[in-house]
């Protein structure tokens, strides 16, 4: 594989950039693979990469019904953080943060990891107490957290509404300085390129239409490009999880919901952190191109449409204007939607299933992007060893029967409310 560097850039400039190698190949599916990963998004590509790199399993195919990176890895708002209170989440996401910090070097692909800090705004004494508690829990788990007062927040985002009579006056906030953003497409492409170079077949326009299960064990999959044999299958299909699970007679604690995001026209550097305004169902960061990247709540009803409706965009932006009144003259560039696999406790499921050789990676709700490296890492471990890793042992399916659910937000099994 051609290594990307400033020297290769200069060298290729002399040939008008006509001689770059393709970043990944476009192979025909083989008759049989050791492992098949369904879903060529961030998690599927990362899983294949870590299977090859950490476990030496390279006879792997990624089957993608569309094109790689066309689903949620290309539709999120690119935020990275590990500001969780519960131990299972804290350990898992912090492991991911450590992978993010060196990911560009590891993949030889600039994922533009930007630890600009993420600030959760607080609007009451009670909320400040809750954030102090969450910050302390984070620090006890070795995660960076700073409790900020009103004046400190004012120095960072002076253009926010700090007037006395606003509905949600800013009392302070909790900040994770190492949180930030990364370029989502680069994450997908970086993993794809490295996985491909180690022998993984990335097969696009290949939809899985059925599974061959015999005596409780997987033997192969049926696809729009023929049948393929395998002994292990990993599902990384986010919003489409139930559709595949139905083919395996698996009923899951998941509902599909649409989440929208939007960006404004590009403006000069203004917002240097990621800011969340939970009271107004709004969060925002500024992309490297200068666009304000904004998001908020689910549209609020079950949906498999990768597009949403105007009422929620209006609701989110109304909240946004409450905290950043100077955004009122920004023009919107575009809005889009993605399908969230909303689990009933808001936490993911990374586990084996009742079918031998079938592994499940789903339930990411609206937090899947930041988990891309850690999810791929533990899922590869689970597939390679047929055994969950300590980091994902709590993210099991069994918890919906044992009662050991991980409900970080405490909203219960009504995902559209969260």
């Amino acid at each position, binding site marked *: 594989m051609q290594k990307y560097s400033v020297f290769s850039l200069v060298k290729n400039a002399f040939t008008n950039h006509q001689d770059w190698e393709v970043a990944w190949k476009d192979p025909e599916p083989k008759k049989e693979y050791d492992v098949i990963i369904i879903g060529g998004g961030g998690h599927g590509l990362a899983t294949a990469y870590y299977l090859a790199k950490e476990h030496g399993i390279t006879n792997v195919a990624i089957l993608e019904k569309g094109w790689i990176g066309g689903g949620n890895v290309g539709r999120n708002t690119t935020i990275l953080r590990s500001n969780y209170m519960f131990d299972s989440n804290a350990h898992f996401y912090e492991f991911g943060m450590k992978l993010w910090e060196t990911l560009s070097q590891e993949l030889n692909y600039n994922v533009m990891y930007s630890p600009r800090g993420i600030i959760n705004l607080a609007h009451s004494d009670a909320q400040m107490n809750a954030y102090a508690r969450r910050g302390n829990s984070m620090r006890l788990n070795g995660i960076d957290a700073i409790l900020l007062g009103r004046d400190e927040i004012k120095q960072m985002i002076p253009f926010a509404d700090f007037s006395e009579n606003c509905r949600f006056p800013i009392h302070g906030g909790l900040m994770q300085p190492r949180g930030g953003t990364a370029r989502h497409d680069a994450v997908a492409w970086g993993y794809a390129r490295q996985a491909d170079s180690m022998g993984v077949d990335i097969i696009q326009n290949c939809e899985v239409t059925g599974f061959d299960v015999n005596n409780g064990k997987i033997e192969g999959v049926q696809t729009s490009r023929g049948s393929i044999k395998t002994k292990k299958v990993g599902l990384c299909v986010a919003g489409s999880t*139930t559709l595949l699970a139905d083919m395996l007679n698996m009923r899951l604690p998941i509902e599909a919901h649409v989440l929208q995001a939007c960006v404004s026209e590009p403006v000069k550097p203004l917002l240097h952190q990621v800011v969340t305004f939970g009271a107004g169902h709004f969060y925002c960061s500024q992309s490297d191109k200068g666009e304000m990247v904004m998001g908020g709540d689910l549209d609020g009803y*079950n949906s498999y449409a990768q597009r949403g*409706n*105007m009422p929620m965009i209006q609701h989110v932006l109304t909240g946004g204007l409450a905290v950043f009144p100077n955004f009122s003259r920004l023009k919107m560039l575009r809005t889009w939607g993605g399908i969230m696999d909303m689990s009933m406790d808001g936490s993911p499921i990374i586990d084996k299933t009742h079918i031998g050789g079938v592994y499940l990676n789903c339930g990411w709700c609206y937090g899947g992007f930041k988990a891309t490296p850690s999810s791929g890492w533990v899922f590869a471990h689970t597939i390679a060893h047929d055994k969950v890793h300590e980091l994902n042992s709590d993210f099991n399916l069994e918890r*919906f*029967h044992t009662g050991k659910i991980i409900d970080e937000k405490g909203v219960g099994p009504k995902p*559209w409310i969260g």
Partner: protein
Amino acid sequence: MLEIKCPYCGKRSQNEFSYGGDATVKRPMLGEEISTEDWDNFVYFRDNPRGKHTELWHHVSGCRQWFKASRDTATHEIFDTCKMNEAFNE
């Protein structure tokens, strides 16, 4: 913007309503002997179809009645709505 036909008030825009989730989920009868698995299935597990979905809506900024809707989760088309104790026409 969805247009939802409240069986009591007629067609109104989506922002008068709030969503109540899957209407096919049935709470076990009070005092009924059921297995913990049946209870878990009621609380956490859903069919989650792509296509026709029977769901609850609440006309919260209107007549405040709950009702059922049959809606396509892929196209958002609403086929029919009916009162809680009625069945769809289709």
